[in-house]
């Protein structure tokens, strides 16, 4: 929290602030001390906030024209595309916005993995983050069902059937989720209700996420604590706001590129065929952002086993702060972990790729190797490397690291020697 007690200058401001300290909150957010060495990987928090607001605004507009009924949904989406003024634009922003949202969240998550932002004292920030990620997946999945195309219908069928793998009560749970004996109108109707709700739950969690962040403050590229009092920090406004805005503009250019020039590349053309419960498309795939988990699901030749492994792949992230035994946060000073980090990135990309391919032959082999490695990374490599690794010397403070010209002190030292 701010170090100083804020007092509004105007009388009216003081009167209001004494009754509801909103102005103190604004002042806290402006002055919030931020490490001065934050790089562009730290701008994705702001970008994510932008994404959430974009989805909420475009979503509320879509809901004004969309009809949540099995007989009418597909037609109403076409009506949005063809008739509603700028409907095509708003829908393309919403559907591509979901992809951009996930792109940003993946970068944000890998940033945390690289710089050890999940470690003490930031475990709660991390856990809330994973909860947000889970809710995002739920929101995106249910949103994808709404246009009631072939991919909507069969995606919904496959995902809801995951629950039928639960012994004894599985069948009853899927019937309960469906409100019928298959994915049908009641399913669509409730998915719409929940799709509307979840983003607001996410918004609530975002507030908690930032609240929890403002207790210890930001982590930073060298991963050491801020020293107080010191010259390690700058006020959030204008230093970070301007950097965030610049990154956001670049992000929006890419976003607009998709919306205006390739609005359907990330989607699947089968979703422009109305849902047909009698025919499954030959090749069903989820949206790209769910592919690694889909690959894990399919890598196991057993129904329950596949489902358990897929959910474990996500839930393992909750205990990550306790699996990583290293006290050093930033991978900049962890020569061994740094390499495993990049192998993990590659592993997840490979899983994503094979998730989009048919589950046979070489793809199945790759999926299995990738799945085993994924769990190996978290359950074995992280704890063991934390013990064995000899980390590079940490800088005394952030200013020291910045002044040496590189966030990596050891690299900076080496360079000096060469000169």
């Amino acid at each position, binding site marked *: 929290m701010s170090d100083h007690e804020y007092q509004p200058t105007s009388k009216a401001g003081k009167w209001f602030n004494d009754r509801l300290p909103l102005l103190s909150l604004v002042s806290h957010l402006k002055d919030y001390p931020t490490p001065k060495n934050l790089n562009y990987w730290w701008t994705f928090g702001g970008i994510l906030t932008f994404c959430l607001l974009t989805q909420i605004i475009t979503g509320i507009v879509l809901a004004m024209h969309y009809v949540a009924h099995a007989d009418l949904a597909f037609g109403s989406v076409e009506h949005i595309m063809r008739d509603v003024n700028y409907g095509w634009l708003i829908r393309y922003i919403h559907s591509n916005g979901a992809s951009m949202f996930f792109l940003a969240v993946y970068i944000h998550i890998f940033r945390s993995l690289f710089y050890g932002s999940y470690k003490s004292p930031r475990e709660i920030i991390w856990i809330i983050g994973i909860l947000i990620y889970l809710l995002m997946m739920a929101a995106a999945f249910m949103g994808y069902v709404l246009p009631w195309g072939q991919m909507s219908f*069969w995606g919904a*069928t*496959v995902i*809801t*059937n*995951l629950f*039928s793998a639960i012994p004894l009560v599985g069948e009853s749970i899927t*019937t*309960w*989720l*469906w*409100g*019928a*004996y*298959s*994915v*049908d109108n*009641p399913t669509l109707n*409730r998915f719409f209700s929940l799709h509307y709700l979840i983003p607001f739950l996410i918004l609530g969690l975002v507030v908690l996420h930032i609240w929890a962040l403002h207790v210890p403050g930001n982590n930073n590229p060298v991963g050491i604590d801020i020293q107080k009092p010191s010259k390690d920090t700058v006020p959030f406004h204008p230093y970070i706001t301007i950097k965030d805005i610049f990154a956001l503009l670049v992000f929006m250019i890419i976003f607009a590129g998709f919306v205006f020039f390739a609005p359907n590349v990330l989607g699947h053309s089968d979703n422009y065929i109305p849902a047909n*419960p*009698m*025919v*499954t498309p*030959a*090749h*069903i795939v989820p949206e790209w952002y769910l592919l690694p988990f889909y690959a894990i699901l*399919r890598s*196991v*030749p*057993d*129904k*329950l086993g*596949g489902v358990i492994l897929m959910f474990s792949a996500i839930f393992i992230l909750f205990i990550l702060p306790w699996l990583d035994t290293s006290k050093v946060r930033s991978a900049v000073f962890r020569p061994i972990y740094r390499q495993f980090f990049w192998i993990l990135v590659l592993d997840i990309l490979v899983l994503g790729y094979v998730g989009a391919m*048919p*589950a*046979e032959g070489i793809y199945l082999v790759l999926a299995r190797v990738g799945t085993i490695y994924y769990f190996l990374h978290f359950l074995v490599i992280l704890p063991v490397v934390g013990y064995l690794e000899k980390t590079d010397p940490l800088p005394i403070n952030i200013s020291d690291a910045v002044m040496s010209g590189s966030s990596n002190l050891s690299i900076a030292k080496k360079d000096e020697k060469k000169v």
Partner: protein
Amino acid sequence: MAKNKKTTRRDFLYTATYTIGAVGLGATIWPFIDQMNPDKSVQALATTEVDVSTVEPGNSITVLWRGKPVFLKRRTQEEINEARAVNLKELKDPQKDEERVKEGKDEWLVMLGVCTHLGCVPLSNKGDYKGGWFCPCHGSHYDVSGRIRKGPAPVNMEIPKYEFVDNNTIKIG
């Protein structure tokens, strides 16, 4: 708690209050959960009658029942023989073909056309087993009796409740 601490009137009141409170809470939550289950109007649509007089041996038709496809396959004698020649030990979910059809109506296989893995509709006359089915979603192979032979699906395709109203009409449900 100390061993010799006497149970007081107040302890009783606490326990009674918690218990009644929990029951009340449960009774209040239940309607909010149960509203999501299939209602009477959905359950009412639970039977379908199908005229099968036009189906030639070796062919099959598909009808929609409770939102799911049902395969009605009129099998040839050859296919029936093949289904019965299978060694039960080879099966993942051992079941005799005889248990999957109605006695005296051996040629009719009436089965939910729903893969028992994650619910896709398998393609007929595809896969490794002649006259069987193949599910394109994650690669499950079923034989001519609809039994799971290969792939992630755990059990055979389900046989719904059905009966022959007369020689040409099957009532499903």
